[in-house]
């Protein structure tokens, strides 16, 4: 029944997870070629996760080639000198493992979980595609079609599927966050073979990658495998470009209307907020919890329950490497206009800006964050991804154990301050996502 709804988990998949638990032991080191290696030993079950995070996402793309990083993620499954086209996925699955990958604005992440006696195979496979990716025109053509169908399935044939894309396009004028990782289909058609290889040589190099191994293995053995399969891969020869665009401060609220095949109007506020890891970002995330985490949260309680103006409402920061956005949204109940919903949402925002939050709310949010922080590390896959993210985004892998302290330090005053500083009209986009008139 709730399937049509704006899928928060889908959005969460684009954002890095920021919670982790308190007692994760790990070691880390760099190979001479710059590959960063993180090891986390856990013998609870006989399986092992091997993941590689490449520090390249859609924000590294040429505006004339949006969707390129995600498309390239598909090509990475095409094969290598020693793995035939179409064999990569089969090899993992037929050895009892699972695998996947995803691309965000900031990074591309590949992961597989295998029975622990297949650690060497998993490491060999990731090394193969890091060192000798092999893509032919058949593979490119097939993946072009596949990615187009993925786009249709996730975004075009799904109610509210264009929401994030519209918010990003409206919120950023300069920064490459203005497009989403799925990008525009025509650019992938226009891209030439040489461009794929250039992209590979520039970004898919050991000095732009983080290899994480988590689970049932002995570190000495893992290190020997890593040395053997990754040690000889040459370091990239070019400096890795990072976007330097700064989104200028807005001076007036911007408004935008988008029509789609949906039945109920959606209202979205998108506020510019600082990059993840800053004090303000932590405070804003906690403010987001006050507004929308749990049935007693303000948007839930006021907009959905008491006033019954929305079938769904929420707030969530989208933590990003560069300054990003915090979104608030409401999907109107039947018969409620977008204008009235916006007014009601504004009342909630204005109240928190004017009066801040209560002690009770602060304590609740701290408890929620603590709970989430512990449970994010329930699975090896989560541990591996969190370790890699903390290293790449914060150069501080131990945040997997200590980041909670940063949240716990946030005060009521901090939250009141960030509410006043960022939840301002002139700092936001208001998007109306409206039903297209029927034929």
């Amino acid at each position: 029944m709730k399937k049509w709804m704006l899928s928060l988990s889908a959005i969460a998949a684009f954002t890095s997870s920021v919670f982790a638990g308190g007692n994760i032991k790990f070691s880390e080191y760099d190979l001479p070629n710059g590959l960063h290696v993180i090891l986390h030993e856990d013998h609870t079950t006989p399986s092992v996760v091997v993941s590689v995070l490449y520090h390249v996402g859609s924000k590294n793309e040429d505006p004339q080639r949006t969707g390129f990083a995600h498309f390239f993620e598909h090509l990475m499954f095409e094969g290598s000198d020693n793995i035939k086209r179409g064999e990569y996925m089969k090899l993992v699955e037929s050895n009892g493992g699972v695998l996947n990958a995803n691309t965000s604005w900031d990074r591309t992440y590949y992961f597989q979980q295998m029975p622990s006696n297949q650690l060497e195979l998993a490491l060999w496979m990731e090394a193969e595609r890091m060192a000798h990716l092999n893509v032919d025109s058949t593979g490119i053509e097939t993946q072009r079609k596949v990615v187009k169908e993925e786009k249709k399935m996730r975004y075009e044939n799904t109610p509210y599927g264009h929401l994030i894309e519209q918010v990003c396009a409206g919120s950023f004028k300069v920064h490459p966050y203005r497009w989403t990782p799925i990008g525009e289909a025509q650019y992938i058609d226009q891209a030439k073979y040489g461009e794929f290889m250039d992209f590979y040589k520039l970004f898919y190099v050991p000095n732009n990658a983080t290899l994480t191994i988590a689970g049932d293995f002995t570190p000495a053995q893992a290190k020997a495998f890593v040395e053997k399969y990754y040690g000889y891969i040459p370091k990239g020869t070019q400096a890795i470009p990072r976007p330097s665009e700064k989104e200028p401060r807005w001076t007036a609220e911007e408004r935008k209307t988008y029509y789609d095949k949906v039945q109920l109007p959606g209202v979205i506020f998108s506020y510019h907020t600082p990059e993840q890891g800053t004090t303000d970002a932590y405070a804003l995330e906690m403010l987001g919890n006050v507004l929308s985490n749990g049935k007693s949260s303000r948007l839930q309680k006021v907009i959905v329950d008491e006033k019954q103006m929305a079938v769904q409402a929420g707030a969530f920061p989208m933590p990003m490497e560069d300054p990003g956005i915090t979104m608030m949204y409401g999907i109107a109940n039947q018969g409620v206009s977008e204008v009235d919903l916006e007014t009601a949402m504004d009342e909630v925002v204005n109240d928190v800006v004017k009066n801040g939050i209560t002690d009770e709310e602060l304590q609740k949010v701290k408890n929620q964050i603590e709970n989430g922080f512990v449970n994010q590390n329930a699975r090896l896959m989560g541990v591996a991804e969190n370790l890699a993210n903390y290293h790449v985004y914060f150069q501080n892998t131990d945040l997997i154990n200590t980041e909670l302290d940063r949240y716990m330090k946030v005060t009521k005053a901090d939250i009141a301050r960030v509410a006043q500083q960022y939840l301002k009209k002139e700092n936001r986009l208001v998007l109306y996502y409206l039903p297209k008139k029927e034929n």
Partner: protein
Amino acid sequence: MKKIFAIALSILTTSQVYSQNFDRSIRPKPGPATAINMADAQSFTLPNGLKVFVVENHKLPSVSFQIDIEVDPALQGNAVGYQDMIGELMSGGTKLKSKDEFNKQLDALGGSLNASSGGVYASCLTKRQNELMALLSEMILQPNFTQKELDKIKTQLLSNLSNTKDDPNAMSENLVKSLIYGKAHPYGEIVTEATVNKITLDMCKKYYNTYYKPNAAYMAVVGDITLEQAKALVTKYLGAWKKGVVPVAKYVAPKNLNGNRVTLVNKSGAVQSVVNVTYPINLKYGTPDVLKVKVANAVLGGGSNGRLFQNLRETHGWTYGSYSSVAADKYENAGTFSATADCQTESTDSSVGEILKEMVRMRNEAVETKLLEDIKTNMAGKFALSLEDPKTLARNAINIQKYKMPADYYKNYLKNLAAINAADVLEISKKYIKPDAAYITVAGDKNEVAAKLAKYAASGKVEYFNMYGQAEKEEAKVALPTNLKGIDVINNYIAAVGGLENWTNIKDITTKMDLSVSGQSLELVEIKKAPNKYFSELKGGGMVFQKKVFNGVKGKLGGMQGEKEMEAEDIAAMKEEANFLGEVAFLDPSYKVELKGTEKVEGKDAYVVKVTNAKGDFKLYYYDVASKLKVKSSETVEMGPGQKATVSSFFSNYQVAQGGMKLPYTIKQVAGPQVFDIKVKSFELNTGVDDKIFE
């Protein structure tokens, strides 16, 4: 000296780094397999009949509680949906606390507590387990069902229902449920606006009072807790839950098919079709067939190794993924086989064809040894991976009890899996894979896909359903008169708007229009002159947005970006657009004119005529059955490489204009998300337009 040493060292390291002294084409062999350690769940039963299973796992300081209510409830009849509201009503406050107070206390714990008609799930850090269990107990034992909450839930549900109208997955799901199970089975009951409006508070209370009983419940306690602590906790908080007699309803078992049926829910303009080939199977939990069917299914469509994925995605690129699944069930013939793909609209019929072909192959060919071994290893691996979550152990223990499965079912899983051979897979495929007794369901654009799908139906016909899985009434269609041809419809239209003579007397026509799009008002002037000269200008707020001129041979495009000469492609399109004769041109034999059927346009029956030009491009025209007038035209245009959109125009408000011609004064054009409303201010005929304006 120091410097030289540093350089030497760096050369040394470099050479070490770059040397690759092994043959990387040799694939690493697996190490010795590690045994899977499967602990037993511990269990106890409270005097009130609540069966509790405990799995200790002290890795993280948290604990979860799950209660499953396992009943065979009464059918919901014309009030479908009320059983789904039980959970939300239970979350609407208790006899002791208002909803707000309850939620405040719950959120303050930082954990979660959710109820549904099927049970309750809660989790938190171990240090807060007492407070959480106190709330859980209050919710289960003393909920306060109120009319106010029910009204809210109904409003929300109605809004949700209206939103699912555009969700092809919801359409597909409803269709499958209604076809396979029908109204006489709880799995086939479908929520609609009408059923929601029939729901009363009494029904909900009665459901809760009848079925929410500890003797019908199974509870799993998993995490950082010991058996003794769990016993004390559950006894303290759920010991007072009163047992009762829980009635058991009987349902009509789903029927098997004799031949394939092709069924479709229309989603006009859909960019993809949601395809499912599905039918009921009689597969009960825990029986020896289950594992064999799962292996056969994995070969066919279990993952990226499966034949469906390899065929439809990797070979053809028609879909992001195609998979099959089999589900066992506790009821008679209520399990399902299903093979699905969200595929390109234009490849819908080919996708169905390939899915059926792969199903046939499963029945005819023994699976290759290598693939079978790979699939078995994969399933063994996934089974092992599932054990990483301690909740799996609790769930397995509960399943054994609930479905009366052999006690060692999961213990023997890997052994039984290893024993399955190619002959077993072939035999089980012949029993369960039925490419000739399946429902082929499609949620997609009827006009694009239906005709090509009919060949897969035993009846040769596509059956249509609405989004709630209800058969579309046949009388929606008027029968086509047997002698009527497409060209007759065109001739009737020409006669209706003033006749061929009047039409061919027109030498030029100037149309002035007001156009509004997204609240913006623009002016559009279009001038056509025989034989194919064209001029149009779109203005608003003193600016020219778009200008087209064409003298029959060459033309120019102008607007805010400046002016440019038309290229060959534009010219070809322009010749069509400048077609001065309209429908009269279609009388020429170079056009293929076909009557495709009837369809409702704005609630009225219209003939659908497909007109294809010499190049093979086509447009659809719709002519009202009663008035003979043209009410709609539609065509698919390229919006960019690989992106297509349907542009439709709707014509209404026909009035007699100058020269005795009947012309539409209201036109609506729908192009993707854009809607243009056009009001014609005037049609001026034969004013002797100067040729200069077309240059």
